[in-house]
């Protein structure tokens, strides 16, 4: 079985069959042969598995938030900067654009503009979050001002850093067609990116709900 990252995913097979040899089939009445689902399967599987620790990290922050909130003392929640609402919409739109990219790619069209648009929306989200932090600071809610502010900054900055990681992936995806990645290879890149990007959108909804409605 071919390791994933070292398989050229696969410019050599651009437009061709999925990278990695097809399964040779189970032997001896095997009901669950893991082998042969292909490199694509392992790449997607790896992305899904990677979400587990990221989600766990944020759930640790969330549980700490809930415990600290429960203590009650000096919690002093502030109001959510208005730009955060706009950022939430932008992140949602970026997910839709990414799905549009995948649909165009599946239909054999030129997906690059749609991927680039997703990237731009992602960058806009991060810049919007920076404005939100500056807005909070201008209103006296600095990093250490109140426990609520501390959690707000920690969770939103950690999320923005993960979005920045997603932007790196999207940047790669937007350059990939120009470098000859086509067909199922490009589809795989977009699929892996989409899993991560939509996850970040869902994660943001969780954080937004917490910070807005559990103050």
């Amino acid at each position, binding site marked *: *079985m*071919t*390791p*994933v*990252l*070292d*398989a*050229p995913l696969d410019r050599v097979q651009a437009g061709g069959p999925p*990278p990695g040899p097809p*399964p*040779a*089939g*189970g*032997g*001896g009445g*095997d*009901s*669950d*042969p*893991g*082998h*042969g*689902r292909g490199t694509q*399967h*392992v790449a997607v*599987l*790896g992305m899904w*598995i*990677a979400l*587990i*620790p*990221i989600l*766990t*990290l944020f759930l*640790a*922050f969330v*549980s*700490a938030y809930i*415990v*600290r909130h429960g*203590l009650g*003392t*000096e*919690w002093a929640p502030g109001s959510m900067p208005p730009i955060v609402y706009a950022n939430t919409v932008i992140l949602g739109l970026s997910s839709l654009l990414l799905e549009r990219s995948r649909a165009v790619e599946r239909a054999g069209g030129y997906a690059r503009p749609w991927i680039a648009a997703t990237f731009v929306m992602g960058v806009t989200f991060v810049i919007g979050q920076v404005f939100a932090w500056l807005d909070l600071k201008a209103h006296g809610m600095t*990093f*250490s001002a109140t*426990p609520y502010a*501390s959690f707000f900054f*920690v969770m939103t900055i*950690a999320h923005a850093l993960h979005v920045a990681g997603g932007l790196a992936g999207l940047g790669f995806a937007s350059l990939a067609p120009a470098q000859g990645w086509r067909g199922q290879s490009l589809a795989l890149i977009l699929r892996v990116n989409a899993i991560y990007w939509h996850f970040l959108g869902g994660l943001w909804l969780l954080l937004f709900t917490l910070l807005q409605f559990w103050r």
Partner: protein
Amino acid sequence: MTASHAHPGRQGFVRRVLFSTDHKVIGIQYWVLALVAVVFGVLMSLLIRMQLGFPTHTWPLLAKIFPRGMNGGVMAPEFYLSLVTMHGTMMVFFVLTTAPLGGFGNFILPLQLGARDMAFPRLNMLSFWVTALAFVTLVLAFFVEGGAPLGGWTAYPPLSALGAIVGPGQGLGMDLWITSIALFCAGSLLGALNFLATTLGMRCTGLSLGRLPLTVWAWFTTALIALLAFPVLLAGGILLLLDRHAGTSFFVPGGLVVAGRAIDHHGGSPLLWQHLFWYFGHPEVYIAILPGMGATSQILSVFARKPVFGYRAMVGAIFAIGMLGFFVWGHHMFVSGMSPYSAIAFSVLTLTIGVPSALKTVNWLGTLWGGTLRLTTAMLFALGFVSLFVSGGLTGIVLGQTSLDLYLHDTVFVVAHFHLIMGMAALFGIFAATYYWFPKMFGRLLNERLGRVHFVLTLIGAYAIFVPMHVQGLMGHPRRYYDASSYTYLADALPLHQIITWAAVLTAGAQLLFVANLIWGGRRGPRPGANPWQATTLEWTTASPPPPENFDSQPVVHHPAYEYGVPGAPRDYVMQNDPPEVRP
């Protein structure tokens, strides 16, 4: 197979050894890292033992080596505490986590799956180097101003959150400790991701889940635990660093006055750290020991020439132990003022772990029952693992009960318990795995006679160190005290301290036999051939050491993992990739 894969034999030293993406090289790198770390860890434990055994003795030679910590040949209390902290950290993270999972797991898992490499080889390389960087960062803590941190491997706030004002080592040393642990978490997560993806997606044809060796199940479960536990420690570490440097108050309560100075924090909860830490900390015990359970199951079966007794139950028990481990963290906090109702819940869940643990033990004995035992060194260490697992596990049942723990908490009884189960049992698992897989890893056999002497001395040493320590704990001897002679009520504990110290010196000395065996075996040991133990799993179907591509041709599995003593078969075992007709 693709042509771009970077494997040894085709590149220079840097790509072939340092930045290799070959799982076998990375496995050996992890194993060597653990070996280096265990030398540091053992030396620190000997210093700790010298102080405890002979607290009033002067050590002029050590004064030259540690001019700050042992000025005038007398150990400073702060130096003692920094040794305790660094010993625990070094052993838990860089030995007990690194060797079983990163070392043997990396080397053996793809081979047992019939795969050419891990799913993500570059990520695998990155995971090792991040771990190595974490190790260097930790060691650096000894050399910065104030030295290494003092707060123990659990780093409880507020001591860990307030900086150098609370003591030497709590400044830059503590920062390096937190950074090291954060890096370690990141490296471990990358590795764990690889283990899961490889197990689920890279198995060779015919290797169904029901045919996986129990070692694979153990590494798989361990990786899953790591994915769910390390992020929580990482989150705690981030919040702790922010408390130290960004003025936040996640863990630091208000109203603290240290060295006559009011601390500018308010409203944090030290217990919040304890929850986060132990949510990671207890599963970490299983991260350390589950691979040892897997190796033991494997080795007992091979050298008893019998299938593993109750294979499915063993798989279920591995999962049950791993998952139950996430629901018992509160038993580390019985004295924290938690509600008695919570304590009962944590206590019951803790004792529940005894059920799958007992099941495993009974099945190990069932595997041995009626077998044709071959008492190789690997087999002896696996038997030692079972012995230590039972001994250490039994005292876990004692500590899992709230009423008993209230008395024994923070005594050396706890130290003795977790050293037996997490330290010695896990180390015996590492030794068993080393003697068993060394021929596959390095293409040479270790010396069996030397190995047996090593086993006997180490087993006697393990019990000689930790049984008296239980007795001291029952006397009420608190842990982390550096001079028992200062307390009248601990006078009876002093002779035991001296016995333990001598036992520790002898046990550590016995490890020189192991080191000598590694050196001798690596250079002059007899060449074993592909399958010296007449074992059935796929790693033994290829050359020792395996070629860069692991297998000359893609294996196809037709048989379960433990087909020993098969009636009517041409040999007393059937390898997993033997043709179907081999088994009558």
